[in-house]
């Protein structure tokens, strides 16, 4: 049988690796390799052309305002291709500033940019900055479970009729009003939870991997169970500490 393989596109890590975003790439890559599925990581620089149809998973992380502005301006050029990728079921993980960037407006500290309009979500700047550990409840992974992470943003995002990634148990989330955190649309997951989100949330990582395998190979491909002791202990520590 032919070995399965996924291609992970890491967009602009030279700009968007402020909060240890490398952790997400490691989690995706290793969780494939540990199951004898090949993983290739393609790293894109700001001047590189991106062939979206050759990618199975795209990861967009967080950077400083200055860096996010450069990335947003760069991606305007590929707005249509990125939209088509998402509409056709491409897996996209957008964290931190990359999340509001996908909507209509993308507020930075001193200005508001036009967003990429991949999603009909909208963000307004907030005077306060929301910083801290976050626990949300999500039914994304088949059963209801917790997703843990850390947020640091000053935007308020409203997601309209989209489904949120989860409901906030601790933290601020999308806007501090409707308890929603993040967004899911087709195989796009966006959230303010930043940096190394996937290592500690192995079910979310596997969710993204199985969606990408399904899209690429046209059939459900069961992911072998892994020993997730370290993953689960790091995850449960946050849940225990902040919820109980």
């Amino acid at each position, binding site marked *: 049988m032919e070995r399965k393989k996924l291609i992970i596109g890491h967009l602009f890590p030279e700009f968007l690796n402020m909060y*240890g975003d490398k952790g997400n790439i490691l989690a995706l890559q290793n969780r494939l390799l540990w199951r004898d599925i090949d993983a290739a990581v393609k790293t894109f620089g700001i001047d590189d052309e991106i062939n979206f149809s050759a990618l199975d998973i795209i990861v967009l992380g967080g950077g400083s305002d200055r860096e996010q502005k450069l990335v947003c301006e760069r991606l305007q050029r590929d707005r249509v291709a990125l939209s088509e990728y998402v509409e056709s079921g491409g897996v996209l993980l957008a964290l931190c500033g990359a999340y509001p960037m996908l909507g209509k407006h993308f507020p930075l500290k001193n200005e508001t940019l036009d967003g990429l309009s991949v999603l009909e979500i909208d963000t307004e700047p907030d005077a306060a900055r929301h910083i801290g550990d976050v626990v949300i409840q999500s039914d994304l992974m088949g059963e209801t479970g917790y997703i843990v992470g850390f947020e640091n943003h000053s935007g308020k995002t409203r997601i309209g009729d989209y489904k949120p990634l989860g409901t906030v148990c601790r933290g601020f989330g999308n806007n501090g009003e409707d308890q929603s955190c993040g967004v899911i649309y087709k195989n796009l997951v966006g959230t303010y939870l930043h940096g190394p989100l996937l290592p500690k949330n192995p079910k979310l990582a596997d969710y993204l991997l199985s969606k990408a395998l399904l899209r690429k190979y046209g059939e459900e491909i069961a992911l072998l169970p892994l020993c997730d002791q370290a993953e689960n202990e790091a995850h449960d520590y946050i849940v225990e500490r902040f919820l109980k």
Partner: protein
Amino acid sequence: MRIRLILAIWACKLAIFASRLLGKNGSSMPGQVALKICPRIMTLLAGQVKQDIIVVCGTNGKTTTNTLLSAMLESSGHRVVCNQLGANMIWGVCCAFCEKTDLWGRLHADFACLEVDEASTVKVFAHIKPDYMVITNLFQDQLDRYGEVDLTVDFLRRALALSPETKLVLNGDDPVVSQLGEETGRVAYYVCVDEKVREESSGGSEGRFCSFCGSPLSYAYHHYSQLGNFTCPNCDFRRHEPDFRVHGVGLENGLSFKLTHGDKTAAFDVDYRGFYNVYNIALSYSGAVLVLDKAPDHQAVLSEYQPQTGRMESFTINGKTVILNLAKNPAGFNQALSTVMADTRKKNVLIGVNDNPSDGQDISWIWSVDFERLSDESVKNLVVTGYRADDLMLRMKHVGFSESQQVKTRDLKEAVCGLLAGEGEVSYALVNYTVVFTMQEILKEMEGGAGYGA
């Protein structure tokens, strides 16, 4: 005014005395009391400094740099106000002035050397207009407190705007620091390591782009993080011509280097570890040369200087050596890892990370540290500890250490015992801010023979 000032000083001194009776080393409460009674106290006392006031800022190395600078000035026969305990918020600075003031409100000092937290510079500069500001480096640090490096630069910019006469002494190899010299048009002195020292992997992404036009910087050579001989290919921004030029750097058996300023060259040879200390020493020496207008006796100062808590501090327990090092952010950790891996002996390594407010509650940065360098045959045992031991174990799993190859405990004593039980010839403990003090106490106690049965 004079009455208020004297009252404030008495209250501050009393508060210092009281908190020491209680066994505390606090400087913030006494400083707060003094500022409350006499809001202008810092301006009044700073005005009595006979010669210069120097402020030291920067992500890493400010305590070392400031302490060395102060010691060089003292060894030249001067009286110096210095906030030596690393108490670097406004209250700590205020407290340092009060301590050197007599009961009648008279300050007897020729210089003031003040380490100031970057986020506190605006508050401090509202009271004090320093003659010089030394900036060691600006790395990504404790993101949840400062937001990001750009925000830190903003603090310094706003602080400098309050004090138009302040001259700058800058790490010229750091583009983020250098931009402040370029854009403010101040009198600035650039201190640079003017040669390629070694191959070094990078860590931390901030500042590798031109602060003025956003293009990626290119490097003739590169030291660590964003430090090096940089040029912007797109605009005029480039490493400034050094005013203080470090060359002839040797990193074996301590540190040695030469520093040239004008037609004078000084030689340095010290028993310190870590390349980053070249910058700390060079910046403090340059600062001293500028304010004294002559070369200080640096060698005596440097050989006497005791590293602070956990700056590669060495302990001997039952004949085994444990080296404790504070590292607070990716740049600090990567530098510490360089030092650890330069030691070719078999070793046990402990990594400890807490997430108290003074550590930074966001520990995402552990994924930016090049822990991959630990996957080497010479690393025999790995211990992870601190409140975020679980996160560290997971990080190390992605380096290639399985769960069973690591000792994980949130208890620091247990962690030290686990470290000593390893089969390495030497043990290194790399830990962040609030771990370091507790761990130092544990190590001292064990060194003294109280023992934990290890």
